[in-house]
């Protein structure tokens, strides 16, 4: 299945900060067919560094989408039955307006003049996309990590538009530990002289800072177990220690590779803005308590966490589930066993697919 990225233009989006961004472009992909009653649409929400290319093979690069093991014919999000949409988030760098986009006022990239955005802003822009596709209600909103935050935001802010929400490996509010790791990443970028206060688009990007930020990120996405399994203490192409600071260990080599690879596909300023949006995410901000936040939600929920995920630990999912249960919301929850840490929702998907498939099936049958 070859897929293409579409773009949609919107006049403006009003942001939580009070600023207005105009105009705005959204990059998105769709898979499957929208049915006549428009009741089979599912919005997939990507994580921090994801993009609109969630499934199929890209017509440009030939590469599979980031959740191709989960979206497609016969898969958890079965594109033979459902119409699946995925868009790049506001502030991103994969086709949707972000700090690397040209500011029409100046003819230059926004850089740090781009307004600070929130998860709520990302979702608000997604509602404009869904409107433009003529869809009133989504059968489901689903995503892991930051995608899960967006799914929760949808269920809370647009209750009448969401039949079911599937937040995976996520939280209702970013914890100090999560903020701390994001801040390390941001500081790494801003400490790189090439960052140049964000003005690097016509010169050299802050590749070293961005690579270090990504290295830290990757550590948090894995688990102690998965790193021991994958790398152990194995040395990289040498029999004994080098007694210098070149690469000794496999794990060092892996992190450096991941870091440098990321530089080629991601914008450092987007890193700053999107991590900031994550850090601001707290459903209790406006509502006072989580119970108040979920009071108006109408969706059926499937909450999933993973046993070895220490970045978004299960207790954060369980907090969501407990609040939903207390207020008699329809909620299913399971912690799936996995050694893959936070990455599990992307790579260890057999059991996750089983529960998503069953949940969607019964939701579609009963409520759509």
């Amino acid at each position, binding site marked *: 299945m070859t897929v293409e990225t579409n773009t949609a233009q919107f006049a403006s989006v009003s942001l939580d900060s009070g600023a207005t961004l105009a105009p705005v472009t959204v990059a998105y992909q769709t898979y499957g067919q929208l049915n006549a009653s428009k009741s089979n649409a599912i919005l997939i929400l990507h994580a921090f560094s994801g993009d609109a290319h969630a499934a199929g093979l890209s017509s440009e690069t030939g590469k599979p989408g980031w959740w191709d093991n989960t979206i497609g014919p016969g898969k958890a999000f079965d594109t033979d039955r459902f119409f699946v949409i995925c868009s790049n988030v506001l502030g991103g760098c994969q086709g949707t307006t972000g700090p690397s986009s040209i500011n029409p006022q100046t003819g230059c990239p926004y850089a740090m003049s781009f307004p600070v955005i929130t998860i709520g802003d990302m979702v608000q822009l997604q509602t404009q996309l869904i409107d433009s596709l003529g869809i009133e209600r989504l059968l489901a909103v689903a995503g892991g990590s930051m995608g899960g935050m967006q799914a929760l935001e949808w269920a809370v802010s647009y209750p009448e538009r969401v039949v079911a929400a599937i937040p995976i490996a996520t939280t209702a509010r970013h914890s100090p530990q999560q903020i701390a790791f994001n801040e390390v990443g941001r500081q790494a970028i801003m400490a790189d002289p090439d960052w140049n206060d964000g003005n690097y688009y016509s010169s050299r990007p802050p590749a070293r800072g961005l690579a270090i930020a990504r290295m830290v990120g990757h550590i948090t996405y894995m688990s102690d177990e998965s790193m021991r399994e994958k790398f152990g203490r194995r040395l990289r192409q040498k029999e004994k220690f080098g007694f210098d600071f070149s690469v000794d260990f496999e794990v060092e080599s892996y992190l450096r590779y991941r870091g440098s690879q990321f530089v080629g596909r991601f914008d450092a300023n987007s890193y700053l803005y999107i991590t900031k949006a994550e850090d601001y995410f707290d459903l209790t901000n406006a509502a006072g308590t989580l119970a108040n936040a979920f009071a108006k939600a109408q969706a059926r929920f499937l909450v999933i966490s993973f046993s070895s995920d220490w970045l978004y630990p299960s207790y954060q999912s369980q907090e969501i589930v407990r609040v939903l249960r207390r207020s008699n919301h329809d909620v299913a929850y*399971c912690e*799936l066993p996995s050694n893959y840490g936070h990455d599990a929702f992307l790579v260890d998907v057999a059991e996750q697919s089983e529960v998503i498939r069953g949940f969607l099936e019964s939701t579609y049958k009963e409520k759509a």
Partner: protein
Amino acid sequence: MPAAAAAQAVRRPFVGEVLGRGDFAIISELVEPNSKVLDLGCGEGELLAWLAENKGVDARGVEISAAKVRRAIARGVSAYQGDIDEVLTDYSDHAFDYVILSQTLQETRWPLKVMRDMLRVGRHAIVAFPNFGYWTVRLSLLFTGRAPKTGLFPYEWYDSPNIHFLTVDDFDQLVRREGFTIERHYFLSGRYRLHFLPNLRAAIAVYLIRK
């Protein structure tokens, strides 16, 4: 009553089976259509899926085994992993029409607290339990002199999930002491419903109670 009719009443096959179980058949009769049901210890969600499909109930389940929760959700049941002894306190009063506890009461740490919570959270409680006063259990203890091992209690004493053993009479007495009302009760031996000497002859008891 003529002897034949009495025998008929005693040995009358009851509602048969739902999903291969007599207690499920009774529960499925007791639950009103389109009601809200919470099943404690819902296993793989078989009963809840059946009730949702056939009686249109709004079904929720709690189960301690992660693997079973997974299969329940895959079956379309809104289940979550949790410990019965803990989760009930989370629900508001009368959040459900029925709270079901099917053959799990004897496995809970605090059965009395569980029953009180069930009748706070649900308008009705349906409790099914294996009767420790069943004659085969008594004979097993009498003749072997060891913790009974029978079809209903197949475990060695040291790896049994059953930590509170109760009989039909024990349950009756507790219900009286707590001031609960028994709306219906059923005593089963195999596929048959019993009326006489249930404490000795019933393998399984099913009670519909309310406050």
